């Protein structure tokens, strides 16, 4: 919201610099986000009066304009169509800084000969002065401007760009902000004189008002002004509206807008002659009722919207927009002026459903006091009569079914201290509240004040609201800074957070970058995870109002996000290691979805960075990551967490059918590891191969034990035996290990070679293992180990048909 400081100063005196006014307003809740100084560069530019306009000897379109500057006169060449004797203008001498209307850049005015005549300075347009974009003619000043005075004294201004919080509709007005400044600087507010003369017959004898929906319209005031003529509003009023960013229309519309900005109360003017039956009825619209609004659009109304009707039809959408059928036009001579109070929620609903945001709507929906209607209508009536030259019918119609008597709120010094942590005495509290217009009385105890909020403070409803008033006016800076000194509440464990932290530590240590992707995903991309092109099951959770189809569904897994990250980084040459730790969302009937924390990671590209130590990498022989890289990561992670794992056949469609495994702990599957299916990669246009792993945190958590038991470090030496076994290619290494580990003294089995080829029979492979034998209580002998090893080999031969490689 743009607020002219000059305009504000009509209602409150302040000598503080604008920056300080802005600071105090900001600290107290009405934020000034920026300031624009108008007239900063107007040095030398003064107010002048045109004393003569003569034809240019050499050009039809140009005139020679003589300007009185109060003590001296200058003649300038002017091309503007609106020069006239006795008008007051802004005169810029040679050397003044002006905006070049063609380039928008600031330039210094130079002496110039225009078609043979020397122009000593110029009369300026609004655009040249930087006030607006208008360059159709010169700026015409109002008659009040004093000849010879610097233009900056008269038009110079500071515009505050303000952010008003939604609880303070009163601050969406000059008077409201003036009241704030007055309270914050120890000044008083001057309200405009709104008196005017009235004539018979009374307004009541000429129009009636009825409210049939008092819940949506607590108060309706109306006045009648006859015999007016529509025309332009005066320059001073136009300047005010322009400073706020509003376009002047005509004297009636401008007055209603001006008073809305001045008092904060939206008003509406009807052409009285167009109201059928001389009647206003405020009622709910009929469902499906149609009305053409002022902007010429036909609106279909709903039954819970409020309309203003005459005897026959709706003539306005209450608080939102007028109807075309009762619009004020150039021919209008009588105005019925409306100043009413409407239910904020109803206005918000109507404005939202019909998509008609407006300045009026914005004020009504924040909840303006019904008490404001009367002062505002008086002021607007006065201005319409004054500017339109009309007569005001005696009285104001005031239908007020929703009157609520203001109730005092009690505030004690103890309560202030309990909330703020600092003591203010009763006098300070009273003085502060009084400065804001509250009426204060002594309460039932020495520490209590009974405060009644002024009508414009519709936001005050409970005692703690008063505490805030005291705090913000005295200043938050007066509140001390203390550390919490109440006992720290008992802490309960947060195992998921702990697990996430550990996983992150391990993975970044392995060289992984953590990524974070948007859980709102595209369905088509989700389906691309399935090479057989069927849909994800169960169906993912859908948004009712997605912003785009790219973000329409909540992810049921983390895979899509990783795919997107791989696509983004596909030009990176070296190894890419990514993981994401985040939630997936699984639908549940009539309840919020189950949100499951998952870990998902990918390895893509070459295993090693090209490096000189590693000659093969520079010779183009570098190997890409394989399934066993991903598996090694998973094994490392789980070992780090103290969770034993085994790997079983799995059938995940997104993964290569032969290069995938379920990650299993005693209780069951906790995740999956594998190479992404080439068809899936192709669908995403990602160069392969890509290795992948996925672990469910809730599945894994039960296996992470808080305490692990210490095993004594072996005191007796171990004995190592290498054995190369020949088995069927279909035999799993895990089967061999399981058998070996089933024997006593076998402490560890490590695989150090895998071979298939010429050296072994077709259909066979050779696995070379190193078995570590150890006893906790004695040093092993060769015979002892030989005995065990023989039994192992026998069992391997029996169960798996394994033979020793010769």
């Amino acid at each position: 919201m743009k607020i002219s400081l000059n305009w504000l100063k009509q209602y409150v005196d302040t000598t503080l610099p604008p920056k300080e006014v802005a600071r105090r307003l900001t600290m107290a809740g009405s934020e000034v986000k920026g300031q624009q100084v108008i007239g900063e560069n107007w040095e030398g530019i003064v107010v002048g009066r045109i004393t003569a306009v003569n034809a240019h000897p050499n050009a039809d379109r140009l005139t020679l304009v003589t300007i009185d500057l109060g003590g001296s006169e200058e003649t300038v060449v002017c091309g503007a169509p609106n020069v006239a004797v006795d008008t007051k203008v802004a005169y810029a001498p040679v050397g003044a800084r002006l905006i070049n209307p063609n380039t928008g850049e600031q330039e210094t005015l130079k002496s110039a000969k225009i078609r043979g005549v020397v122009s000593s300075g110029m009369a300026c347009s609004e655009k040249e002065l930087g006030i607006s974009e208008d360059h159709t003619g010169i700026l015409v000043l109002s008659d009040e401007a004093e000849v010879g005075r610097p233009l900056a004294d008269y038009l110079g201004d500071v515009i505050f760009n303000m952010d008003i919080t939604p609880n303070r509709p009163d601050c969406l007005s000059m008077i409201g902000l003036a009241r704030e400044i007055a309270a914050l600087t120890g000044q008083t507010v001057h309200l405009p004189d709104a008196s005017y003369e009235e004539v018979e017959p009374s307004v009541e004898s000429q129009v009636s008002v009825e409210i049939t929906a008092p819940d949506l319209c607590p108060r309706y005031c109306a006045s009648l002004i006859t015999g007016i003529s529509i025309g332009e509003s005066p320059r001073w009023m136009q300047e005010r509206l322009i400073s706020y960013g509003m376009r002047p229309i005509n004297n009636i519309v401008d007055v209603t807008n001006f008073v809305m900005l001045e008092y904060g109360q939206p008003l509406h003017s009807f052409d009285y002659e167009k109201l059928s039956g001389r009647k206003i009825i405020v009622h709910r619209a009929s469902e499906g009722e149609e009305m053409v609004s002022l902007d010429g659009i036909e609106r279909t109304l709903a039954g819970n919207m409020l309309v203003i009707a005459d005897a026959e039809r709706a003539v306005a959408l209450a608080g939102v927009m007028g109807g075309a059928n009762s619009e004020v036009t150039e021919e209008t001579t009588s105005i019925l002026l409306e100043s009413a109070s409407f239910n904020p929620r109803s206005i918000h609903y109507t404005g939202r459903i019909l998509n008609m945001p407006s300045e009026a709507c914005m004020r009504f929906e924040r909840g303006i006091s019904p008490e404001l209607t009367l002062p505002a209508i008086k002021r607007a009536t006065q201005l319409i009569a004054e500017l339109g030259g009309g007569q005001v019918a005696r009285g104001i119609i005031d239908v007020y079914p929703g009157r609520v008597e203001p109730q005092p709120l009690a505030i004690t010094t103890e309560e202030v201290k309990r909330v703020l942590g600092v003591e203010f005495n009763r006098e300070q509290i009273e003085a502060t509240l009084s400065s804001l217009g509250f009426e204060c009385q002594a309460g039932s105890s020495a520490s209590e004040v009974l405060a009644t909020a002024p009508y414009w403070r519709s936001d005050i409803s409970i005692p703690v609201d008063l505490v805030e008033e005291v705090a913000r006016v005295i200043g938050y800076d007066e509140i001390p800074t203390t550390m919490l000194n109440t006992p720290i509440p008992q802490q309960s464990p947060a195992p998921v957070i702990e697990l996430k932290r550990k996983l992150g530590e391990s993975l970044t240590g392995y060289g992984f970058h953590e990524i974070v992707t948007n859980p709102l995903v595209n369905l088509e991309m989700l389906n691309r995870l399935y090479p057989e092109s069927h849909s994800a099951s169960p169906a993912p959770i859908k948004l009712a109002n997605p912003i785009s189809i790219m973000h329409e569904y909540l992810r049921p897994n983390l895979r899509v996000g990783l795919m997107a990250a791989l696509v983004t980084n596909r030009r990176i040459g070296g190894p890419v290691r990514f993981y994401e730790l985040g939630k997936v969302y699984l639908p549940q009937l009539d309840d919020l979805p189950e949100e499951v924390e998952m870990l998902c990671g990918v390895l893509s590209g070459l295993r090693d960075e090209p490096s000189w130590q590693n000659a093969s990498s520079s010779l183009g022989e570098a190997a890409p990551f394989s399934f066993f890289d991903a598996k090694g990561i998973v094994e490392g992670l789980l070992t780090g967490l103290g969770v034993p794992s085994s790997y079983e056949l799995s059938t995940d469609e997104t993964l290569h059918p032969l290069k995938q495994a379920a990650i299993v702990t005693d209780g069951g599957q906790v995740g999956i590891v594998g190479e992404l299916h080439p068809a899936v990669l192709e669908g995403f246009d990602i160069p392969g191969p890509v290795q992948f792993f996925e672990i469910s945190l809730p599945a894994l958590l039960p296996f992470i034990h808080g305490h692990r038991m210490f095993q004594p470090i072996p005191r007796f030496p171990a004995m190592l035996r290498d054995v190369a076994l020949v088995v069927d290619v279909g035999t799993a290494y895990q089967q061999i290990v399981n058998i070996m580990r089933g024997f006593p003294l076998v402490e560890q089995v490590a695989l150090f070679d895998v071979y298939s080829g010429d050296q072994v029979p077709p259909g066979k492979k050779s696995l070379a293992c190193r078995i570590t034998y150890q006893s906790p209580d004695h040093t092993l002998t060769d015979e002892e180990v030989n005995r065990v090893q023989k039994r192992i080999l026998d069992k391997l031969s029996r169960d798996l048909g394994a033979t020793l490689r010769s």
Partner: protein
Amino acid sequence: MREQLEELLTKARRELSAISEVKDLESWRVRYLGRKSELTNILRGLAGLSLEERKTVGARANEVKSLLAEGLNQKTEELKKGSTQKSVRVDDALLAMGDITLPGRPYPVGRLHPVTQTLNEMSEIFTSMGFQVFDGPEVEWDYYNFEALNIPEEHPTRDDQSTFWVDQLTSPKGWKGLLRTQTTAVSARAVEAMEPPIRIIEFGKCYRYEATDATHGIMFYHLDGLAVDRGITMADLKGTLYEFARRYFGEDRKVRFRCDFFPFVEPGVEMAIECALCHGEGCSLCDEGWLEILGAGMTHPDVLRRGGIDPDVYTSFAFGIGVERLPMLRYGVDDMRLFYANDLRFLRQL
């Protein structure tokens, strides 16, 4: 003399690597490390040099001497035990011929996402002040996200938080499912689920239906805090938040605590830090010299009451922080979209 040294080193190494039998090592030693070797000559010749040259050349000559000695040791080892092994492993350092500026063997470096780093740092600050992490759902009922926090339907306070609604999700109570717009919703759950004293933080993803630009996204992170106990005051809130600002932004950063409005607090607070770019003068990055960091206040009595906590007995404060803004300010990241584009060239930097 310098070049002479380097040539010598290269030549000596080449010859050493060609040696395949232990018996040939001795003649190499005599040639390169013996008393009459070229190296010894060079060392003796140093006396004729200027003090400056003597220093640099002398240092290098000694380096060369120890490199050659080390090479000899290694070679001796290799030949002694490796006579059966066919391929002899070449040592990096030997291959580098003393050029210690060659890059080391690469180890991959991974990083936590900048938002995770920030959350970790924030958690650490707040947990050290006794706050505990409390979790809540991202898909939330409108009641907890709005009504419980004094944000009723058809109220302008909802307009700032345009909402994503979940398709056809209604609870038996008639509540509607949405993507939470603020982690404050978790506070609404906490006052209902917990008994005072409460001192928690909650953080995670939030969502708003709005156009994406350099400072807005449809998905972003919030961190909220809540403390409820007897005797908690706004002075404590100020202390807690100043401590946070001090630890995150540093000792000497000016902090501003001003009145603001949030429906679920009264009195309401906005905290800002001084703009580092203009030092409070006002510039395009800031508002009049200040950068808003967070919103806070004393929890509104109605919010406590709805959760079954008596506001006449307990007082409470709450705060909410937009997470991305912190690393943006600290590292000068000018576009929030970078956080979720997951470009390695970005992730590697922070």
